[in-house]
């Protein structure tokens, strides 16, 4: 039965957000239908998506995430966009649905996210637990 569960990946460097999403999946019983994994940076997220055993079909992705570049840790939205583009370009992952979580109100970020292939763009401060429950229910129903 375990292999029939929908794999979901949550990527955020904010521990509160990771726990918050994890709690929603737990308390509302989504864990029965999902296999949840979490990552705190893009490098860990990439390792998760390339591994066939953990490859998710739904990704909740923070817009601004730390990534190791040339020995330094850099936070830049374009790395998240690049990550989405790679997922969508890979035939094994192109069906993966990506929900981007953003602290930014600027329209250009949303436009760029859509262009990169993001399916749903969420402003972080606009979502109560009930909104996330509804979104997850919708995603799992598809």
């Amino acid at each position: 039965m375990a292999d029939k569960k929908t794999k979901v990946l949550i990527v955020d460097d904010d521990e509160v957000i990771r726990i918050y999403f994890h709690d929603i999946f737990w308390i509302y019983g989504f864990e029965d239908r999902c296999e949840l994994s979490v990552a705190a940076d893009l490098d860990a997220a990439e390792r998760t998506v390339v591994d066939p055993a953990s490859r998710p079909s739904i990704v909740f992705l923070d817009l601004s995430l730390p990534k190791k570049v040339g020995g330094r840790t850099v936070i830049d939205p374009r790395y998240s966009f690049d990550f989405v583009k790679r997922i969508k370009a890979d035939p094994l992952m192109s069906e993966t649905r990506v929900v981007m979580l953003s602290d930014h109100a600027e329209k250009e970020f949303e436009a760029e996210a859509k262009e990169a292939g993001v399916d749903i763009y969420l402003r972080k401060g606009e979502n109560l637990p009930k909104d996330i429950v509804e979104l997850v229910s919708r995603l799992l129903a598809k």
Partner: protein
Amino acid sequence: MDPIIRLQNVNFWYEHGKPSEYLALKDISFDINPGEYVAFFGASGSGKTTLLYLIAGIEQSQDGKIIINGRDISTLSKQELAIYRQVGVGMVFQQFNLIPSLSVVQNIILPMSFLGVSQERAKVEAMELLKRVGIEQLADRFPDELSGGQQQRVGIIRALANNPPIIVADEPLGNLDSTNAETVLAFLKELNEKDGRTVIMVTHEAWSLRDAKKIFFIKDGVITEDKSSSPKEVGQTISQRLYSQLSPELSKTQLTAQALSSLFLRGYSAPELKRFEFFLSQRLENKIDADLFRMMLGRPWHSDGLGLWKQKANKVSQWVEEVIEEKRDVESLYKELETHPEAPLADDVEKLKSWLVSDYRGELSDLQSVQLREIIVDRIRGVISSDDMREILNLPRSKAGLGFSIHTAERIKERLDFILNNGHPQLGSFSPV
């Protein structure tokens, strides 16, 4: 159906490992299913609130498992528990626990802010919740400007802010008059039946169990029995089980005193109930006579009495004498009070307040009403003297007084003096309520 809450062999100590160690919960195990309305019923100090705090993640388990939707919360980190308390469970307190320096709407926004929800979004949600209970007009007031009933409604709404599937309520009716207690009970029922939330209430008041579908009787940290029933059967169960299940080792007299205390003195504090229980058992054992018993009920609190006002002291002592003279048995009196609880202090005070200002031509502000109720309580309990009362009534509002004219202050003082010192009228005969 898998339970939403499962406790397995939970023990809980206060002062664990110290000489003063106290085992508050002993090997507790039970299941609660999603959407159930459950009550924990027991006397003060039985461990029921500790149990509630463990389920709510306020206290962490020391021994045994507390499994919420399949996950043992005893293993959660502090950060995880803090978020569980926001997302998983909404807590309603007896003392309301609103933050006095924040307006009503800001109090409701607070739990949402904790999860990073913006003020704008949270305010929209808070206003929708306030509308649900019809008090949106109070959004910008501060807690001390609200009545107890209004504060408790705000307390419940705050518990709903993050839409948790589990609502836990710790003696939610304890500080309310009977009308407001009914409103709160009806709302808890609605949250259970309409929203499908799991509701868990802790109470020592039998009458408030009527909507519960399952009752756990708890005594000295042990669940003595659980009963799933229809509301009618629940009432019957309470009457039948009250004495033997709550305190099997106490004498008949002590049991009677304990059983009747919370109904006679609904809305009074735990120390007051304890003192009343003592006087009552003394009287039932004939260690004091009827006059002394009545006198102790009416004597001010600081003089080791109970501080009841005269009419209430007379009525309660009359009931007690009827029990002693066997004009009625305890069971029938208990059932009568269960169906029609004796007016709690808050009801009496509200009626008194209305009567005291019935010929006052001005209009009382909400704040003045709250202050006047507090002064009446203090006066009834002998905390302040008659002259103190007049002074507070006359003091300007800038000095935390009520700002009444000296004439009005004197008139209100005299009326209350008359009732407290001489009057034996039935409250209903002069009350405009």
